């Protein structure tokens, strides 16, 4: 509703219009960034380096121990690489949706609502920052290292599992981002809560589930389903048992979970936007 686009035809139209508008706005941001080329180069490297420190932390731990929660360094690198790449992609594509609360507060959201393109596309493309590619590269690098070093008994299914996990993982993170943004329609200062789930969640996933309490693992499986981003598919690839006594077939569910999450996030967004339009802020 809102834009009068109801029914499947309206939805498809909205999706196409949204993607097109997203592209247009992203190009504007890239051109804005390119007016400061040196700054762009430095911040991209900075982004790469800052996220790389996460992995350096893990390397330092392995200087003192053979295994972490029963996992070897290459195994953890696989977990890290999958989560890092998936999160990096989401952060690149819609990392600025958490600025929504600020837009509600200062009233600039209204300027987006009088344009003929979906608001979510405009908010997602807001402050698009190519420098966030640094995080994606770093994730891919660690993933590459893991795949070279790991001694895995590869099967077609296991090979397929990796790209599927990255794409599904990115979609799950996207859903968390958008749901968090939708919540900011009601609570404008909730950006930090959202960051807890997104940035916090991605850091959590860099470590094996065995080092966390069972309740937490179940929580990120069934409540905020972050476990589907990398834990469950990666453990299947490594030939390990699913964490916290969960059934093994859950490893095949990430795409399904991702679709479900994205659907729910879309719903939350619509509810949030409708509530904004009826309450003002």
């Amino acid at each position: 509703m809102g834009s009068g686009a109801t029914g499947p035809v309206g939805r498809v139209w909205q999706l196409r219009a949204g993607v097109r508008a997203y592209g247009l706005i992203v190009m504007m941001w890239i051109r804005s960034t390119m007016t400061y080329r040196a700054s762009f180069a430095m911040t991209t490297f900075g982004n790469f380096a800052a996220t790389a420190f996460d992995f350096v932390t893990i390397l330092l731990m392995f200087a003192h121990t053979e295994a972490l929660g029963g996992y070897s360094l290459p195994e953890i690198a696989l977990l890290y690489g999958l989560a890092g790449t998936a999160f990096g992609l989401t952060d690149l594509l819609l990392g600025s949706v958490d600025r929504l609360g600020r837009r509600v507060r200062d009233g600039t959201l209204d300027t987006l609502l009088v344009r003929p393109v979906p608001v979510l596309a405009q908010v997602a493309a807001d402050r698009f920052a190519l420098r966030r590619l640094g995080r994606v590269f770093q994730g891919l690098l660690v993933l590459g290292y893991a795949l070279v070093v790991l001694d895995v008994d590869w099967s077609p299914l296991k090979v397929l599992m990796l790209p599927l996990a990255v794409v599904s993982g990115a979609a799950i993170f996207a859903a968390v981002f958008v749901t968090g943004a939708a919540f900011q329609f009601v609570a404008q200062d909730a950006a930090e809560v959202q960051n807890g789930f997104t940035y916090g969640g991605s850091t959590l996933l860099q470590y094996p589930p065995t080092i966390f309490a069972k309740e937490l693992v179940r929580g990120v499986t069934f409540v905020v389903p972050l476990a589907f981003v990398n834990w469950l598919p990666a453990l299947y690839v490594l030939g390990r048992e699913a964490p916290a006594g969960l059934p093994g077939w859950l490893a095949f569910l990430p795409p399904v979970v991702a679709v479900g999450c994205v659907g729910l996030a879309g719903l939350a967004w619509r509810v949030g936007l409708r509530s904004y339009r009826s309450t003002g802020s």
Partner: protein
Amino acid sequence: MAVAVEVTGADSTGAGPGPGFIEVDAVEKVFSVRRRGASRLRREKHEVRAVDGISFRVARGEMVGYIGPNGAGKSTTIKMLTGILTPSGGRLRVAGIDPARERTRLSYRIGVVFGQRTTLWWDLPLRDSYRLVHRMYRIPDARYRENLARCVELLDLGELLDVPVRQLSLGQRMRGDIAAALLHDPDVLYLDEPTIGLDVVSKAEVREFLRDLNAERGTTVLLTTHDLTDIEQLCKRVMVIDHGRLMYDGELAGLHEVGRSERTLVVDLERAAAPIELEGVRVVKVEGPRQWLAFPASRSAAPIVTAVAAAYPLVDLSVREPDIEAVIAKMYAGRS
């Protein structure tokens, strides 16, 4: 004092029943605000009627001023007319479209300028912001070029097109923003405080452009402002809103009568003198050689200035317009 104030000055062109380009019927907007109640922990719900049953019609091609003190409900009305907010009650139509239900369809028909929130791209040349509008609104190429050329000429933007927006002055940016809102040929232009913060020259430029736009293209214009001069120079019709209700709808001169508002003539004489005595003029304050003379806003200042100059050694003078808050306060006082 009566709480319900009837709308006066019904001589305006678009008022009354019948079709209008903008139709507003008994529109309400109620916000429920939570605030801390007597006990510290429980928050009490509290209803705020930001817009409390407003009705008006605006005909195609009209230019209407919409004024009122801060928090009177001006912005809320504009937000409902643009489809940003959904009304809590009543009926709204703009160009036959229900704004809340068909926000996207409406957006092609309206242009909106929020005075203090620019939609231009800070780090990019002005031209780039217009290109985005071009593609976002899918404006046919020929049409876009034609509209841009017209705006560039009338708003004097030619030399600014390749300048990054961050280097523009406030007045230049406002002109840029107005152009951005007009490239897709809207039928209605909403302007929220279009002259706020601008210097005298920029204000005059913006007003002149709006007048031309309205005369040449027949664009319907609804503008909110704090500056009565905007209204004086642009709008035949003015609507006053306060506490969410329409207090007045009619000509500006009529508003001054209803509000019994006064302009102030400040004169500096060569030396201190006794309060000036003139018919229809009241001395409000004397401070050495400077005197403040109040006279009805509906009267011209020229004969008064002539009379003062003839009888007293005049050094300097200035005329102060009544401010909106004062006019509205007087309207209340006049009714109690």
